């Protein structure tokens, strides 16, 4: 029973936090709610026995990416943004589209089937530790997608440097 | 070169401009007309035999009581290369209280001229950043003039800035924690 209660708490909290992130006028407050959201996501990873992912979630998303967000936002002059209306004029339309999408997801959810149990069962992960398994999977089975992903990141880094250097 | 020789050189070069040459000890001052001061100064700065590359000091003096030329702007020049110096003085009447700025020749004159204006009210035309320097921006009068009162003429009354401060204190009394 307790796990279900905890899961319900996390699910509700994450939904609320997401809504708070997009409705705050002050971007700094949005970032703070986003930070809380990331922690809840990390906790959900722990439920899935993926403590490595949980830690990486906090290090990368909370510790690096969100800090960079904050870094940029603090440099903006927020005086005007704070007083503008948080909703754009067409918000009823957006609401309609959003809720219809939500309905669609809700109906498809009925056909949800748990996948077949693969090689990496919970028992095996506990025995071998999460990190080791993840490393093995990434560098053997999914080596090619992994390398592609790193190449894409490299391109992004080079692009950022080109853009930054252009001025001078 | 001796100061005397420098003074004579200036006199020969700018004959009508030089009003007077005085000497005290081993120092010589040359009193010049203010109209061509920039020309004289650039000559002193640029001619190879004088080469006054160094403006030691620039200040004003108030000779209150003189009929025409109440103020003098005094330039102390030195040549680091030749190790000689000279004092140039430009007389300035009270009615036309301005002179050309020498900041373009010696960058160091910048603050000295501002101070001279602050203390004596002498304007320097062509100065890049002409403001008061030592006194507050809203100060009235020029303190080093001889007719500037040594004591407040307000008597027992307070200076208006001080009064404003007192009023602010009075207003903020209600926030005090008792």
């Amino acid at each position, binding site marked *: 029973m307790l796990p279900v209660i905890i899961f319900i708490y996390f699910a509700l909290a994450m939904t609320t936090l997401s809504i708070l992130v997009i409705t705050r006028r002050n971007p700094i407050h949005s970032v703070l709610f986003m930070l809380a959201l990331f922690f809840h996501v990390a906790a959900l990873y722990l439920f899935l026995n993926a403590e490595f992912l949980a830690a990486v979630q906090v290090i990368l998303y909370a510790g690096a990416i969100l800090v960079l967000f904050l870094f940029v936002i603090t440099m903006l002059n927020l005086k005007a943004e704070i007083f503008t209306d948080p909703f754009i004029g067409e918000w009823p339309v957006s609401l309609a589209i959003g809720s219809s999408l939500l309905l669609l997801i809700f109906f498809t959810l009925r056909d949800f089937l748990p996948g077949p149990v693969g090689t990496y069962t919970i028992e095996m992960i506990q025995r071998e530790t999460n990190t080791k398994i993840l490393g093995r999977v990434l560098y053997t089975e999914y080596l090619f997608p992994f390398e592609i992903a790193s190449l894409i990141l490299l391109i992004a880094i080079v692009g950022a440097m080109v853009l930054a250097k252009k001025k001078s | 070169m001796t100061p005397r020789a420098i003074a004579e050189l200036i006199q020969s070069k700018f004959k009508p401009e030089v009003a007077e040459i005085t000497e005290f000890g081993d120092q010589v001052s040359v009193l010049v007309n203010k109209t061509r001061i920039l020309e004289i100064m650039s000559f002193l700065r640029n001619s190879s035999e004088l080469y006054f*590359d160094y403006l*030691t000091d620039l*200040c004003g003096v108030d000779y209150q*009581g003189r009929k025409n030329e109440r103020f003098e702007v005094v330039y102390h020049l030195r040549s680091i290369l030749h*190790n000689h110096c000279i*004092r140039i003085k430009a007389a300035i009447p009270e009615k036309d209280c301005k002179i050309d700025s020498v900041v373009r020749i010696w*960058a160091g004159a910048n603050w000295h001229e501002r101070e001279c204006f602050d203390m004596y009210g002498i304007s320097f035309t062509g100065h890049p950043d002409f403001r008061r320097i030592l006194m*507050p921006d809203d100060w009235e009068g020029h303190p080093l003039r001889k007719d500037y009162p040594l004591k407040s003429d307000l008597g027992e009354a307070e200076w208006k800035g001080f009064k404003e401060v007192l009023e602010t204190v009075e207003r903020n009394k209600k926030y005090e924690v008792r």
Partner: protein
Amino acid sequence: MLKKKELSINMGPQHPATHGVLRLVLELDGETVVKCTPHVGYLHRGTEKLGENRTYPMALPLTDRLDYVSSMSNNIGYCVAVERLLGIEAPARAKYIRTIMAELTRIANHIVWIATHALDIGAMTVFLYSMRDREWILDLYEMVCGARLTVTYPRIGGVRCDIDQEFMDSCYKFIEDFPKRIEEYETLIDQNRIWLQRTVGVGIISAADAINWGLTGPTLRGSGVAYDVRKAAPYDAYDQIDFEVPVGKNCDVYDRYRCRMDEFRQSISIIKQCLDKLPDGLVLASEAPPYDMPIGKPRVMPGHPMGEILPGELVEEKVPFDELYSATEVPKGELGFYFVNDGTARPYRMRIRAPSFVHASVLPKLCEGSLVADVIANIGTIDIVLGECDR
């Protein structure tokens, strides 16, 4: 759309690194200083105006308050100027004592400078080491005149009282010990890579620019110009003393630092020579003006009413005013006094050419285009005291 706007920062008048009440308005683009506007005058006490309303001996204590870090040098500068103006020759012994005092003050001043400069750059220990050594010099002051900060020890025409054997012994011991202390400072910062990174190539001002801006003292000599008033126009006993003027090469903060460190050693050698050569005799000239110097009548041409001008009355003639500009090399640079004398015991005009004032004016040139951290290094390197800057 987003607009780029410089961040303007008010550095001072209350700020730990502005050495008093200097206020710099910095416009920052990130960490880079785009514009730097110094504001001075927060410590303006009207010393020149005060001097014009006091007799020459009475105005002497005012000079203590100019550069309160090296008050003895200001006193000496003032006394030398008034002696030249009034035609008084100080006795040889007094001249030597004044030279010793001036050099002790130079050391004391440079100690304060290295202390604050290093503290600003972040080396805290140098600060406490050097303050320990400054204490010794202040004790020496106390030994000769009883005061430590605002000494008023020199007098027009000499010094107030003679030095005794105890002072001599203590002084000898000081100049013997002090070189080791300089090495102590140098071990902490001289070859430290962070110190070098913070100072080498920072705050560069070329020799021509430095002269053009009117810089003096070690700030000018760091740019490689060997101009020193002690050599160019000797006063006191400097013409009988053998010393060198250290100059820099790269015109940066580090070279000015090296210059001042070398001046420590030169000052020690000067003090040693003076102590060795110290002649006997009086320490105050017989014609020295007394404290209650009579004010006297203004020297005027016959029939000239300059002395007692009535309101609204104007005169045509020129009064024979004496004018004199006298410069001395104080630790911070050239301290000049320009006197206009009308024959009374009060200066008609007393102008103080303060090195700090000139040096503060060069800050925008040094700082613009550099980083915020370099502003701190630059304020330290020009060695200003706001008491002197604002007068």
